[in-house]
């Protein structure tokens, strides 16, 4: 379960202070597929980063699986993230000098437990079996995002956080990506997807709308 207790996050910019999250209280039980919707600048990505323990909130508490994320040291948090959380980004963020199989394997190394033997199966499941030795530059956007999902899935995380995972994809590929995330949820995982459109609505068990850093339940 993910529990956010009155979480606020304020950025300091040249133009002044910007409140990205404004006192959010949110509980996401294990096994849910939550779509966080909102326009650009509404705080969706900040919310995911806070849940992942990558961005310390200005106020409030974040607990994942019963553990206070920001009570851990930076090293403990990194290890916790590697074991429990998979990330999928809008821009894929694949390492350009590694091939697809190596990109997926990166996650295994970070975790410390070796799941790399599962890479071929995972690539096969995501329709990337013939692309294992290709570099990211040789892949289509849909293939890149599926690689990112494979990387997120490799360590068998409990949670997947996806930030606009379909933002750069055509509708067909967007649907494929959402289906893979839904498969993960149906297998017992928790999915939190940040998106500005309705792409995830059909798959989500719950939709949270975010506006000016405040949540508003929609579904």
């Amino acid at each position, binding site marked *: 379960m993910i529990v956010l207790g009155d979480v606020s996050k304020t950025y300091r910019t040249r133009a002044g202070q910007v409140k990205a999250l404004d006192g959010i209280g949110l509980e996401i039980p294990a096994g849910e597929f939550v779509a966080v919707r909102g326009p*650009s*600048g509404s705080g*969706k*990505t*900040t919310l995911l*980063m806070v849940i*992942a323990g*990558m*961005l310390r909130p200005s106020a409030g508490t974040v607990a994942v699986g019963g553990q206070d994320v920001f009570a851990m040291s*930076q*090293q403990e948090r*990194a*290890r*916790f*993230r*590697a*074991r429990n959380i998979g*990330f999928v*980004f*809008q*821009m894929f*963020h694949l*390492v*350009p*000098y*590694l091939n697809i199989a*190596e990109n997926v*394997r*990166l*996650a295994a*190394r*970070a*975790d410390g437990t070796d799941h790399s033997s599962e890479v071929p199966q995972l690539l096969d499941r995501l329709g990337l079996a013939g692309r294992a030795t290709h570099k990211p530059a040789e892949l289509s956007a849909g293939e890149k995002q599926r690689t990112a999902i494979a*990387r997120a899935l490799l360590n068998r995380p409990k949670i997947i956080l996806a*930030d*606009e995972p379909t933002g750069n994809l055509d509708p067909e590929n967007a649907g494929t990506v959402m289906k893979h995330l839904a498969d993960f949820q149906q297998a017992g995982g928790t999915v939190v997807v940040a998106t500005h459109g309705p792409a995830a609505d059909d798959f989500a068990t719950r939709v949270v709308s975010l506006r000016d850093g405040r949540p508003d339940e929609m579904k």
Partner: protein
Amino acid sequence: MSTVRMIFKELWHRKINFLLGVLAVTVAVAFFVAFQTAARASNRETARLMLSMGYNLHVIAWDADVGDFLMTGVANATMPESHLETLASQKNISYNHLLAVLEKQMIWRDVPVLVTGLAPEVCPPGRKKPPMVFQIEPGTAYIGYQVAVRLGIEKGNKIEIDGTQLEVARCLAESGGVDDMRIQCHLADAQQILACPGQISEIQAVDCLCFVEGADPLEMLRTEIGAILPDTQVLQAKSMADARARQRQMVFKTFAVMVPFVVIACGVWVGVLAIMNVRERQTEIGLLRALGYGAAKIGGLFLGKAMLTGLLGALVGFGAGATLALVFGPEIFRLTARTTVRPEAVVLLQSLAAAPLFSIVASFVPVMFAVSYDPAATLREE
């Protein structure tokens, strides 16, 4: 995947960045090697050039008249020849190139000549250097230009001076100085001619106090030699010694200033390249942090690359620097180039040790900045 494999894959992917980094280190090392080689050669060349100015230190007998010596250049009292051995056997002293001399003016075949007996030059222990003057074999003589012209003496002639037979080994070229009136022979022959067995009139030497700042070299030498040979006086050709010291100090300081300047400039270059590399890879760093990689592992990727850059730069730079020194050295250091301008193993070792370290240090700040940078900031793309 191991860190090393990732480093090599990244190097291959960003070849230009890597090659620019290697080039920066290569330039730094090449300058360092060329300067080091040139500095050593320059010091030796300068020393050789300064030596050609002659001996600047004179040790004469305590009872010799200094005023007379300064006016005539010849000491009017003698001292035991063993003084030479006493001085030459000392360790940790500030002089070198010791030459025992016995000389006296006399009239020979109605011509005033200066008979000069020279012992083979000796050096104190561990300071062996090639002699500054020619070594005269016993039974032979070198005849000054004016003496040879006036008396019609030629090479190979047999001459007799006060009962001592000598063969003329050389007739010297005109010097325009007192050497033109000399008859130079071995010390033993001069002692026989001048009836001074076991005696010398002077020990000539070169002082080695070029790099003592703020001290009075003559005072130091008088204290040092006075303690060894209390029955002597020490005189120094100060202008000659000062010119020698200033020239050597100038060469030393020139290189001491230039080498750090070049190394710092190249360090900044490597640092800037490291910053560019880090900026280019900020997303990758953010991703690795998001995946749970620690700062040490991420830092290892960048610092490992810096080390490889340094190692390769050191090897290429040493080759380039040594080549520069070998090509241009002989043009610059004409007297000593053949023996002194050469690639030096110690400089290679210094380069191999220093360049990777230098590269790591130059990259350290941007890398540490990168690994401590908020990964969320790089991955947030709303």
